[in-house]
């Protein structure tokens, strides 16, 4: 499994690293915003950076599946001591790691900044937890959208198909906000997307 995860990371290095770089930049900008005293600017800024990160996660999922198809990686891997289930599991684990690696630093930095600069209300603590979990789930949902859309053979559908689905995730957050309702919807969405991807990947001709 480690060999497969290593291969996924190396083959999609740009797509794994790009969200991490955006994340580090976000943390740096958030810290400087808080230190400079214009704390009100932090929320719109985070609101701007999150869609960029989510787009990156979608691109990672698509790149993994589309790259696999165009480079005919799975037909080779499937003839080694590996099953399709394991190939997909390694792929999804890589995506989850990339999402966590990009979002966790932002979340940790936000928590530290909020605890340092804002009054210690219970309300804030709960809000931070809900926003963090929802952000991670939304990131995973966007990644799963990318996985599903990346299974296509058409480059046009790859570009066009990602956008409406990612917009759907984004509008869900805009309309419903961050909270338990959205978390539940996102968990169901992630489950459905993963099951569909798994069915398609394990039954298709390689």
């Amino acid at each position, binding site marked *: 499994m480690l*060999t*497969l995860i290593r*291969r996924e990371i190396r083959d999609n290095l740009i797509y794994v690293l790009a969200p991490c770089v955006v994340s580090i930049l976000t943390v740096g900008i958030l810290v400087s915003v808080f230190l400079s005293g214009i704390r009100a600017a932090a929320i719109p800024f985070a609101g701007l950076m999150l869609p960029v990160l989510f787009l990156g996660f979608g691109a990672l999922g698509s790149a993994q599946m589309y790259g696999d198809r165009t*480079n*005919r*990686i799975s*037909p*080779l*891997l*499937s*003839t*080694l*001591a*590996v*099953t399709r289930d*394991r190939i997909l599991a390694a792929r999804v684990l890589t995506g989850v790691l990339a999402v966590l690696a990009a979002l966790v630093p932002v979340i940790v930095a936000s928590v530290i900044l909020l605890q340092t600069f804002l009054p210690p209300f219970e309300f804030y603590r709960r809000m931070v937890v809900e926003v963090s979990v929802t952000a991670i789930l939304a990131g995973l949902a966007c990644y799963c959208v990318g996985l599903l859309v990346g299974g296509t053979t058409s480059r046009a559908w790859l570009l066009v198909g990602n956008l409406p689905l990612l917009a759907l995730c984004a509008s869900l957050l805009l309309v419903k906000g961050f909270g338990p309702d959205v978390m539940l919807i996102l968990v169901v969405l992630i489950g459905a997307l993963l099951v569909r991807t798994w069915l398609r990947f394990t*039954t298709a*001709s*390689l």
Partner: protein
Amino acid sequence: MNDSPIVVENLVKYYEGRCVLDGVSFTVPRGCIYGLLGRNGCGKTTMIRILLGLEPPTRGRTVVLGQDSTQLSANTHGRIGYVAEGHNLIQSYKVRRLVGLCKGLSLQWNEEFFGHLLETFRLPMDRKVKDLSAGMRAELNLALAMAIDPELLILDDPTLGLDTVARRQFLELAIDVIQRQGRTILFSSHILADVERIADRIGVIVAGKLVVDCSLDELKSRIKKLRVIFPGPAPDDLYVTDIVNQQKQGREMVLTVANWNPQKQAILETFHPESCTELPMSLEDIFIECTRPASAAVPPESEV
């Protein structure tokens, strides 16, 4: 240890509405080199892909090393070496990286044998796969398939793109593999001389149907090509069954008959031929006769 590493039962495959395989059944016994023959597009590659679980069958069942092909475990995959037609290697990788990946995902890796193959084929480890020649890619694919010490080796037109020397080396390697006890090889090829050299059982697919499945010796003994000269014009019908092909010109008739036996000989004698000469047939000749569009292929043995 099951005695038949490959069992194919009534395999049917439709591809985009077209029947590619039509009720194919055969068994490959352990230790056998099975040569699968057929013209382009007759379904050889599809069958191999179904065996490896890369393609789902429409109907029927294939069992490889005791497991259904649609549910092959990682452990079973690890005991099968596969050389794909066109050599499915990751083109963007350097040879060293590809070797590392295959090694990392193998159950066992015979470093010594692989080193020997690299030396024999003179494969450059620091070049990208896409920069290798077709022959080198074939050699690399073969080396990777053989390095895992496979219990079953499946080769889909493995010598495609190889020059004569490399082809000879490949055949010797294949023989070397079979000599290791219990190894089984299923291979398809267009180069019939290669198949004739190493295969001990032959399957011929024509239009999705397996029309021949027997040992090479049996195939050669069952099919006879005769040049018959009659005193007058050659008769229109000899009343002999299992005629695969017949051509007549004046008094001469060239006849290819399956399941030749004394009864058929006796029927022929009733026409009082002036001479009846048996023409030698190579596997290639048999293949061409069997795959001719009008040919009835090789029917199972009949009474007459």
